[in-house]
């Protein structure tokens, strides 16, 4: 009798852990062709269009990188907490509040402030805003172990209602009264706008990549990162070695919120130039995908964000050939589903009964 049994791997499969993101993306594209065939579209043509619309020209590439920036940061925000088994799915809200605080500071400073000063003030305000908003959940979670998933999610709904109020509310001072068909807040002054590098790509990209490497360094080479690794691996061992877990949970929440808040600042101060509720939603959730596609490695968010940005930003082009834009959302979901399923192969293997012990004996020797 031949039967398949499940065997736990001692260590994750190295080959597979490198190949997984690529394989998953391909698998998702394959599955994604089903809804395309449903409407009679040619999947290969659609995917080719997605590639050319994302990377076809210098302009397209800078656009893709521009849109990769915020999801890189919200991806980093997810990495920083998910690795510790804290499920902060509130990057969305932390980004929105970061957008509010940075826009607030920029509007308050007004035009004519020293540009360098205004930029630093705006970015610090964004980071602090996101950080403090995350802190509101960090405290009950760290102190009383209240479920952070539901809390961070509800905070997303609150912040969305809040920015909607700021931008649409009839009595809100932040409302841009001249923009009627296209709801947005007041344009922030030029002195607080991030300088552009090429096309829409602005200086925020440099800040973003720098922050990614700083966080990677923090996790890998510092005492804080070591304590983080111990807490992430075993709460019992962390208590035993005298690590203050409350502090670790709160600091990683604050760091996570800070990354998301920074994303809000670079959007308001760079890409958008104003608070735009529509452009400030969905970025937190895409960040979770970025984190998963980057295999929860801080630097992994850079390629992952570029790939996802290529998919997400192709929506309008797809519509031109009659494919509804939400196809990109379907593809995003499929990527996460496939990559999550693929994680299984890192930790377990299917072996035919009988083959197991021989392979095992060979490996043990």
């Amino acid at each position, binding site marked *: 009798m031949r039967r398949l049994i499940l065997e*736990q791997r001692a260590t994750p499969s190295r080959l597979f852990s490198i190949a997984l993101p690529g394989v998953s993306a391909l698998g998702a594209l394959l599955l994604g062709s089903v809804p395309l065939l449903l*409407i009679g579209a040619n999947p290969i043509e659609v995917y080719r269009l997605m590639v050319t619309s994302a990377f076809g020209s210098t302009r397209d590439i800078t656009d893709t990188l521009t849109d990769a920036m915020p999801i890189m940061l919200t991806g980093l925000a997810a990495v920083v907490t998910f690795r510790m088994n804290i499920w902060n799915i509130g990057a969305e809200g932390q980004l929105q509040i970061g957008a509010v605080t940075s826009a607030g500071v920029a509007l308050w400073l007004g035009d004519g402030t020293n540009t360098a000063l205004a930029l630093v003030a705006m970015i610090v305000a964004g980071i602090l805003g996101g950080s403090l908003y995350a802190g509101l959940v960090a405290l009950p979670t760290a102190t009383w172990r*209240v479920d952070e*998933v539901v809390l961070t999610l509800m905070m997303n709904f609150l912040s969305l209602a809040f920015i*909607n*109020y700021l931008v649409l509310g009839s009595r809100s001072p932040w409302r841009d009264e001249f923009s009627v068909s296209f709801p947005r807040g007041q344009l922030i002054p030029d002195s607080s706008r991030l300088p552009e590098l090429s096309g829409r790509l602005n200086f925020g990209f440099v800040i973003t990549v720098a922050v990614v490497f700083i966080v990677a360094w923090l996790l890998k080479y510092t005492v804080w990162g070591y304590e983080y690794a111990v807490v992430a691996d075993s709460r019992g061992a962390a208590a035993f070695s005298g690590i203050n877990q409350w502090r670790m949970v709160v600091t990683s929440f604050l760091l996570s919120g800070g990354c998301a808040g920074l994303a809000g600042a670079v959007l308001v101060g760079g890409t958008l130039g104003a608070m735009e509720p529509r452009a400030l939603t969905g970025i937190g959730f895409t960040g979770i995908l970025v984190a998963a596609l980057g295999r929860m490695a801080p630097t992994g968010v850079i390629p992952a964000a570029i790939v996802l940005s290529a998919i997400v930003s192709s929506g309008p082009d797809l519509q031109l050939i009659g494919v509804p834009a939400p196809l990109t*959302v379907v593809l995003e979901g499929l990527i996460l589903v496939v990559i999550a399923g693929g*994680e299984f192969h890192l930790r377990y293997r299917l072996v035919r009964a009988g083959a197991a012990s021989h392979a095992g004996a060979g490996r043990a020797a």
Partner: protein
Amino acid sequence: MNDAALVNIIVAGIAFGAPLVYVAMGELVSQRTGVMNLSLDGIMLFSAVSGYGVAAQTGSLWLALATSILIGASMSALFAFLSITLRVSQILAALGMLVFTSGMSQYLGRIGDEPLIGRLSGVSIEPYTTGALTDIPLLGPILFGHDFVIYGSWILVAVTHFYINHTEPGLRVRAVGNDPASAEAAGVRVARVRAVHVIIGGALAGFGGAYYSLGLVPIWQERITSNAGWLAIAIVLAARWRPIAAFAAAFIFGASIRLGFTLQVVGANVAPELLSMIPYILAIGAVLFTALSPSRGLTEPKALGIPFFREER
């Protein structure tokens, strides 16, 4: 506020609470087995659009509801496969399913020459007409004149309570959610118990989703559930996994969804954007409050969120 407004809010709580009850009861049994399914909101949307599409094509309400239930069950079966068979982190698997299913709902709503958005299906769930009974002051509109979904939700709560506490499968549910290793050793097939209840939970979420596009609203619009799937999860948490408490919470949340609207009608001078925060503030408050209450541990499934592998060492 006058009596009419009060009755209005109570009736709104009953109507808007009903789909929450279905979704919350499904999630409650699923969580009681130790599986947290965070993809409910997406599953509801996917079911809602599918049911609406079938209704628009065939004109059959029952076929539409069956489709919604089937979509809910099959999507949660996929989630069960990922999280139970493949032992993927329940949260990641659910978020993937959430994005996929809500993407599908938007996609399906926009395809074809005559997209479902803005198209009337001509079919909807109708309330029972009870004639004079509805005219009884106060109690009339509260107890009568509802549709079968609302009456069904009341029965569902009683059934769920009885199922968990007074039946043999319910005993297995409680054992699996608290200590899967011990349950397995006692001959309970943990993976099967979990999968079955996750799928039941998805079917109920599918039905709840269909109530939006076929009953409450009843047209198709994107994000028609307005985050009801998430509120249902908050309800389960706030009710500490107890069906009757969850029913009460669903009623309050349902009422709070309409509270903003009612307040505007009676002339409260607050921006509608801020009033829309009410259910979420309520949810945060309820989750915090019950998490801090001394009885928190009694019904909490201890193994919630932890994948189970029999040969784990």
